[in-house]
């Protein structure tokens, strides 16, 4: 019972908003608040942070009173797509400057392609090659993208 409550959507959302609200209150406090007439850089963010924290609390309280809907949030999260899609884009960002657009595109396609169960590696290689060729033709030569094509 308790586990399903902590694991429910509303509870996690409430917790997320509450902590982000408190975080922004804390960060705003580092800046001068000023007064209502001459607002300092901390005034508006603090205001937003306070309201956000209150909303987070409302969600939490509502959840505690009404109870969770018995859903299992953790089980509904799919790690594989999140992990591989994220990794693919990170690979692109890390490779593009030094290794060039060609290799970065290949890395992006291969890694993100593995996000699906039963991905077919030869097919991904082919797709990666095609995308890399297309990307270089359109973005590098066509639109003048300021990234090297080949490793520098």
């Amino acid at each position, binding site marked *: 019972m308790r586990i399903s409550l902590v694991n429910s959507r509303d509870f996690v959302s409430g917790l997320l908003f509450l902590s982000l609200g408190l975080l922004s209150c804390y960060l705003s406090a580092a800046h001068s608040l000023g007064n209502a007439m001459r607002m300092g850089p901390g005034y508006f*963010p603090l205001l937003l942070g306070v309201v956000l924290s209150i*909303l987070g609390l409302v969600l939490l309280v509502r959840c505690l009173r009404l109870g969770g809907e018995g859903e299992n949030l953790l089980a509904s999260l799919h790690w594989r*797509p999140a992990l591989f899609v994220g990794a693919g884009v990170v690979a692109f960002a890390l490779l593009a400057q030094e290794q060039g657009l060609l290799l970065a595109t290949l890395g992006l396609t291969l890694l993100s392609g593995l996000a699906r169960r039963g991905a077919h590696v030869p097919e991904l290689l082919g797709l990666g090659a095609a995308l890399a060729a297309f990307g270089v033709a359109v973005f590098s030569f066509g639109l003048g*993208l300021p990234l090297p094509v080949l490793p520098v």
Partner: protein
Amino acid sequence: MELLSHLSLGVETALSWSNLLYCLLGVTLGTLVGVLPGIGPVATIAMLLPVTYGLPPTSALIMLSGIYYGAQYGGSTAAILVNLPGESSSLVTCLDGHALAKKGRAGAALGIAAIGSFFAGTAATVVVAAAAVPLAAFALKFGPAEYFSLMVLGLIAAVVLAQGDIFKAIAMTLLGLLLGLIGIDVNSGEERFTFGIPELAEGISFVVISMGIFGIGEIIANLERDHSREQVIRNVGSVLPSREDYRRSWKPVLRGSALGTVLGVLPGGGAMLSAFASYMIEKRLAKDPSEFGKGAIEGVAGPESANNAGAQTSFIPLLVMGLPSNAVMALMIGAMMIHGIVPGPQVMTERPELFWGVIVSMWVGNGLLLLLNLPLIGVWVRLLSVPYRMLYPAILLFCCIGVFSVNNSLFDVLLAVGFGLLGYLFIKLQCEPAPLLLGFVLGPLMEENLRRAMLLSRGDATVFFTRPISASLLLIALLFLALLALPHFRATRKVAFAED
């Protein structure tokens, strides 16, 4: 008569060969990215922004706006044929459009969507043209208090009319406002919320947030679903709707156009909100509401007209007040600034050929879209039969390049991954991300106007209620909130967005 001379100036500009070409290019590209799920107009405009440096400003804006409303057209095609909204504004079209397609009536749904969109686009263009001059005069009376209240109204309307839990929607808006404040504060020069990271000093680009949440996050969520079972409806049938379809659709088209025209003007309005609102109303007014979700042509005709009208009139706050109503409009401001044009009421008098040229080009573009969409439907169908497993790496590549091109920064691409994962979490938590993006776009503007208004009133917060325009705007916002208290409305809101 002034209107006629304005329009003739616009026609002259929009119909020049080169501008016609850029318009065609824009709407074709727009339809293309609208059809493909995952890359919307934001990524495309971001990628093409650097290309427009070399163009004359009028041609640049004509092409970029073509991409925006072209995407509304393309989005509905994907929604009807594969049940994947190519564009967020076509989300509701999926419900009845795809149901119709499964019944073998894809052609009729596509036809009604295109014809309704064209009608709405035409009507909205006329409204933009007619309302621009008086609205600009009106906007000159706006002080910081009015601007602030207008943005409050926009945010509240977006929250009330959007789907899902109201508390979560407000919280998402606030989170967006906070994210918008990251970077150097213009008044004090202090860095806020940057954690000492130099790349954050200039704030996060909205392309990063929107590509992250709507591009990458959406792809992760899509991959969860099993796509092998999804089928593209290849048998489109005749794209000419039957007499019965017309009879049932003309009222929803009219209502949708009117609704979209009005909601599009609100900051935070625009295409998506209009489509949702129209669907709610049509379902409410229908003789047999149970038919909705099972292939009611009204559920396609209304929202499709509304989203096009809304897309069109969302240019009003941009062109007249310099206020972006969504991420695309914020990019448009960027495009105008590159050419040294400061958006605001003065654009109309200082650059009439640009202002009226862009407006007339919208109508021309809508005509081109009708010509493009009905005969070319076969091409889009073939494009849609590319399996998702081949499509999504390509979409990711476009996202990467789009994000990179804004600031030529790979740090931005990494940041987009973070927002992508956050976006996925939001989808799982059923927190609608659209209000976050709107809050983000409006955040700095709201703070700036709040500060100025309070400074002018010497710290007296009643200024928002004592100035008549500001007070009426806040009153309308209050009425929107009061709608929520009506059990009747709440029930409709829930039913309209109930997941099937």
